[in-house]
């Protein structure tokens, strides 16, 4: 029986490719299994994890059950210990062609984004990358659409029975959102960025009940055309203000406790996932921090994803250096401070009280995920 990706009826179940590095599962695996569980429930189908790695990797598989996988299919082979495109594509495609899942989700790590397209091309099916939202049920999708867009939703225009996976993703640098479908081929493939989907709470009973199946794969040495010479881990390099994704800046508001103010800015940047501390001109001129932290007309112009201004009044000289940041949060005791004119969120308050609360709340929210 030859494989035909257009024979839609022959495909069923939701699969999640689970990546491992050095024998450890990635956090995205749990996020995607959690999301996959929701989709499987909407579809009334099984949720299967596809785990690929070196011999013995099956010992980590049960954990995937704890997040909602009914079953894990394991491809274990010495040539799968370290990632190569050729070996992994072979393993995944052989298994997919054997079992015919309806949906295959892959975490969009550097490796996932290397593997996904190759697999999709070989299987002659569609792949949508970097999805931020997935729906199978049309009602749920329309709910999402009405919140996420400014469109008028006319339910008559939609086929409410449509069970295609609706994959929504940002396009054109995020200025546009697009929902993509793959109506004529299976499996419908989607890559999802780490940190986008929410991890469900871990359930030990479900983990214990998870079924493990060893896949029957056969990888011919001849198809492996690359060789990994070495794998090197590098500690994160120091981030420059200009390239930083997160900048937390301090202004004259830290005067009563300069050291403490700079410290809480550092901690807040860390809580956001790593960032750089910036400063207004007043702080640099007072000698509280070195000039290379200065943001503004003199000093650096930054465009981070998140800019937090703590105790900064926001004179035009400072605003010139940060007003094009994607999201601006300002904290100041003075409700008429000009910084609030450019902020997306403004908090009138004492930065020494507010910033620690922010830090704790962000860390708590992240842990809850």
């Amino acid at each position, binding site marked *: 029986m030859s494989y035909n990706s257009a024979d839609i009826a022959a495909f069923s179940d939701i699969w999640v490719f689970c990546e491992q590095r050095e024998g450890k599962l990635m956090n995205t695996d749990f996020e995607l299994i959690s999301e996959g569980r929701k989709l499987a429930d909407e579809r009334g189908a099984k949720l299967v994890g596809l785990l690929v790695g070196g011999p013995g990797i099956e010992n980590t598989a049960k954990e995937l059950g704890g997040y909602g996988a009914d079953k894990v299919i394991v491809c274990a082979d010495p040539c799968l210990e370290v990632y190569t495109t050729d070996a992994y594509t072979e393993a995944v495609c052989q298994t997919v062609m054997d079992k015919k899942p309806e949906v295959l989700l892959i975490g969009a790590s550097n490796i996932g984004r*290397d593997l996904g*397209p190759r697999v999709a091309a070989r299987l002659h099916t569609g*792949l949508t990358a970097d999805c931020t939202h997935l729906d199978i049920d049309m009602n749920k999708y329309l709910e999402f659409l009405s919140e996420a867009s400014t*469109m008028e939703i006319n339910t008559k225009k939609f086929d409410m029975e449509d069970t295609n996976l609706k994959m929504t993703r940002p396009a054109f640098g995020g200025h*546009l959102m697009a*929902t993509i479908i793959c109506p004529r081929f299976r499996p419908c493939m989607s890559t999802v960025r780490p940190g986008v989907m929410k991890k469900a709470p871990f359930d030990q009973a479900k983990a214990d009940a998870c079924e493990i199946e060893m896949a029957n794969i056969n990888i011919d040495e001849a198809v492996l*055309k690359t060789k990994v010479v070495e794998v090197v881990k590098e500690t994160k390099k120091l981030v420059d203000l200009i390239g930083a994704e997160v900048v937390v800046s301090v202004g004259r508001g830290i005067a009563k406790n300069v050291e403490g103010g700079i410290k809480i800015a550092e901690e807040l940047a860390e809580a956001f996932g790593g960032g750089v501390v910036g400063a207004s001109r007043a702080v640099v001129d007072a000698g509280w921090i070195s000039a290379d932290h200065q943001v503004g007309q003199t000093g650096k112009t930054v465009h981070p994803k998140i800019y937090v201004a703590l105790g900064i009044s926001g004179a035009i000289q400072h605003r010139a250096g940060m007003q094009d940041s994607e999201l601006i949060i300002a904290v100041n005791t003075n409700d008429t401070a000009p910084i609030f004119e450019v902020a997306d969120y403004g908090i009138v308050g004492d930065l020494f009280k507010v910033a620690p609360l922010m830090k704790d709340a962000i860390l708590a929210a*992240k842990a809850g995920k």
Partner: protein
Amino acid sequence: MRIYVCVKQVPDTSGKVAVNENGTLNRASMATIINPDDLAAAEAALRLKDETGCRVTAVSMGPAPAMGMLRELIAMGCDDGVLISGREFGGSDTFATSQIIAGALSNLGIGEDDVIFCGRQAIDGDTAQVGPQIAEKLNIPQITYAADIKKEGNKLIVKRMLEDGYMMVEMQTPCLITCIKELNAPRYMTVKGILESFEKEITILDYPALKDEPLIDPTTIGLKGSPTNIFKSFAPPLKGAGRMLEGTENEMVDELVSELAKKHII
């Protein structure tokens, strides 16, 4: 050795972007640029040319204005340019696009010693799929996220970036490499290069020129050949004026954090 560099002309999304009422992009109002990852790929190819004297051909699939971009690449030092263009190719998703480009490259000829360079992803589609899919269709190995490329005999030694480090990987030619814009600082054009580029002819490969290629099958190109389709496109709500949060310090912080969580910022 011959190097093919696949490049795409994209709207400049780093500045202001205009969106039409129906949720599609107002492309006419935007400046076009060479996709930044592709520019890095071209620079990587030109550096190999500086070392080995090989021929570098810039290839792009797109409408006629993409010719200006190919001329710029020739002005930078590429030997020639090829534009793959035809109405039949329009509406292609990544699967169909890679099919067409692979067909065109086959048509141009891929030798044992040749390398195909691509950018990792385009700033309009952001999918990072076309490069690997071209490699699959041509049945050649790939390395993505290349940060350093060295040629040793008929092998390439490539530094492949991971999130927390890198791999050094050996690969035989013919092969495909995708580059990230952090890989290098692309060179500028020279006035002499610009003047010479206007003397060179850019080859145009349209559907009639390619239809006999095995990879160019009407069922796998264009809108009809695309496994994925756009179901809906829409503009996210505009970034409105900022909000002053209210309540006690705890309440304000909680509201802020829940907003950030909703927007996937944390």
